[in-house]
């Protein structure tokens, strides 16, 4: 029952499975080799199954000879287009190359099955049914996935390329078009099929074109700048306002926060309370090398920020830099969490302090034993 072709592929697949197992145990399961072997096994198994099922492509002897005229198909064209994409891809981008390979493979699979089923019997309807039986379980998911991926990707590329406000407008426009189209088609059931198909095709092409255009023009300048300059991740610890970092400071932290101490700036004075001791203090102890979270709460009119001055650290040979960590500028009535890890003990008093930026004479000593 096993055909020659299938035996070859089955053997190859078994060999692949064995080498995958050996490779995994002896070499390293996370290496690229293991991955490749892993992909190889099902691929060859699929080929084996195809060979087995199509009896190596020999026409079924029991059925009358296949129709002489093969059904018209677009797959030769698709294959050619795929090859073209591969060629373009080799000189431009790897993504295009991969797309081309996928198209070529898909076209060949479809083409093979199509021509095989054309020869299966003399009855075209039966042949078409046969083709559908094998291809539909593959086509459904592939088309659904590609369809949604195209919409999602094209759309997000367009949005990234245009300006922020234009993006939102575009979003509304696109969604409205879809909706309006739906309503239009629904209330006019008599519309010609070709017209509907045409409108949809124009929409799809437009979307893809937009996506390609968006992708090639790149993301908008504003975002590129935010990334390269670290707008929101870089914080200056002075009393002045950072243009980006201090915009929209946090108003509160979760009430269930696990904190080691609470520091409050009440009417111009800085006070601390440590976990387990309700009394106010101006000294808190933090165990060395221990990530410790402190809540800073601003109860004074105006925006203030808590700065932890954590001594100095060598940045290069002979150069030391002050180590400091800070919250954002916190508006009155708001709070923020500051998580510190201090690796070295504070040998002399005042080595580590918590201060409010721009306020003199108010500080809380941090003792690291």
């Amino acid at each position, binding site marked *: 029952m096993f055909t020659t072709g299938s035996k070859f592929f089955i053997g190859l697949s078994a060999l692949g499975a064995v080498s995958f197992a050996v490779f995994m145990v002896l070499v390293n399961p996370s290496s690229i080799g293991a991955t490749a072997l892993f992909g190889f096994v099902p691929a060859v198994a699929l080929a084996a199954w195809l060979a087995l099922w199509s009896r190596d492509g020999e026409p079924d002897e029991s059925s009358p000879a296949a129709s002489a005229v093969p059904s018209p198909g677009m797959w030769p064209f698709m294959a050619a287009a795929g090859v073209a994409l591969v060629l373009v891809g080799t000189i431009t981008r790897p993504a295009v190359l991969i797309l081309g390979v996928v198209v070529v493979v898909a076209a060949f699979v479809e083409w093979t099955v199509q021509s095989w089923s054309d020869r299966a019997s003399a009855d075209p309807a039966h042949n078409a049914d046969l083709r559908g039986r094998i291809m539909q379980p593959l086509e459904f998911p592939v088309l659904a996935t590609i369809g949604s991926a195209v919409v999602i990707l094209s759309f997000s590329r367009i949005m990234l390329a245009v300006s922020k406000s234009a993006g939102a407008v575009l979003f509304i426009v696109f969604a409205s078009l879809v909706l309006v189209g739906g309503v239009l088609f629904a209330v006019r059931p008599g519309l010609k099929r070709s017209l509907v198909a045409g409108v949809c095709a124009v929409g799809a092409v437009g979307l893809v074109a937009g996506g390609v255009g968006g992708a090639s023009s790149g993301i908008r300048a504003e975002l590129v700048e935010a990334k390269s300059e670290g707008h929101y991740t870089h914080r200056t610890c002075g009393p002045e306002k950072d243009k980006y970092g201090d915009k929209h400071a946090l108003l509160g932290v979760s009430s269930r926060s*696990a904190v*080691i101490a609470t520091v409050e700036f009440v009417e111009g004075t800085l006070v601390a309370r*440590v*976990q*387990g*001791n*309700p009394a106010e203090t101006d000294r808190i*102890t933090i*165990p*060395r*090398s*221990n*990530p*410790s*979270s402190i809540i800073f709460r601003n109860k004074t009119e105006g925006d203030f920020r808590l700065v932890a001055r954590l001594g100095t650290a060598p940045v290069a040979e002979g150069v030391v830099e002050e180590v400091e960590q800070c919250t954002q500028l916190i508006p009155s009535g708001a709070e923020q969490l500051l998580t510190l*890890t201090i*690796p*070295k*003990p504070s*040998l002399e008093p005042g080595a580590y302090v918590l201060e409010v930026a721009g306020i003199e004479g108010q500080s809380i000593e941090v*003792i690291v*034993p």
Partner: protein
Amino acid sequence: MTSARPRPTAVNRLGSMRRRVLPALALVALAGCASNAPQDTWDPAGPNAQMIDDLQRPVFAVAGIVGLIVAAAVGWAIFRFRDRGQAIPKQTHGKPVLEITLTIIPALILAVIGVFTVRTVFDLSKTDDTEMVINVTGQQWWWEYDYPVQEEFGITQPIITSGQLVIPVGTKVMLRQTSRDVIHSYWIPRLNGKRDAVPGRVHLNRIEADEPGIYAGQCTEFCGLSHANMRMEAVALSKEDFAAWVAQQLAPYESPADGLAKEGEAVFLNQCVRCHQVNGLERADGSPAIAAPDENVVSGAAPNLSKLMSRNTFAGAMFDLLTPACRRDVWEASPADFGSKYLAGVSEDCLNQTDLRGWLRNAPEMKPMYANPALLAGTGGKYRGMPYLALTESDIEKLVAYLVTLK
């Protein structure tokens, strides 16, 4: 489960029940139990553990009685209603009144227990009358204790120690617990129930010891490879002895004059200071030698070894610094002379040379730790616990001579 010690006044009224049912049950239980188990949960030695004990004894008694009743009922049913050829019984589906009664009775018992439980929970969580604060930091696989400045106890600068927690008797001590790496749990059964030490949080745990002595404990939250070896001991000293201990800890560092110990100091400066701090130790150029441990160790710290020989244990209380005979002498000392024996520290004769040398020779072999360089990819090369240092025998000789001087 012996408790010969006189107990403070009964905390709750459930106690009265104890007098009637306990003797019988205690007799059964006593027969099967070890005597003097160091971590016995039924042998309280301080008011917190006592409060728990006063609650749990009646609960156990009630549970035992209920258990006996059920067992007796089942046993009787098995005996009485076995198939002796009797007719098929009437197909009754139950008696709701009986059902409801038998639902309400346990509910009532539980309600009573619940009331006392809630009261004890709140009594145990009281912290406002704390007299002394100690910060406790757990890490793989030992405990660090630091005593913040508390003038009333003569602590004028922070004391950092490990392995043995030293507390004055009759003093309400609050442990502020946290952790540097994973969750640990601090448990000295004879002083109080356990409380987890969670990284990023501070948990409060109040203990108080009635009498001088050593109270054993053990980390009870699974914390990795050497969880079983993460032990601790609480040492209770009389108030005078405690003052002496504080003075001893605060005494300035004395560099050994010369000889083997002096050479040992050099080895220490060369090898050990990378992780271990000895307060007051200075390098040859007069600069203070400060450990920078977070560069090598995941949890970021190694035990502070100042006054090492004033403790009785090392390596997370896994090994004794005392020989077995000397250890027994300290552990079994009467409350009256315990203080002086403990404060004497480790003399050269009493030093447990075998374990200490073994430890210096190859620590990971003595205690399972993630110190194998081959397995450190996940931690970026940082190890947990003490690594193998490849010290020569002569270095070990010198180091032991030096360590003995750290008193």
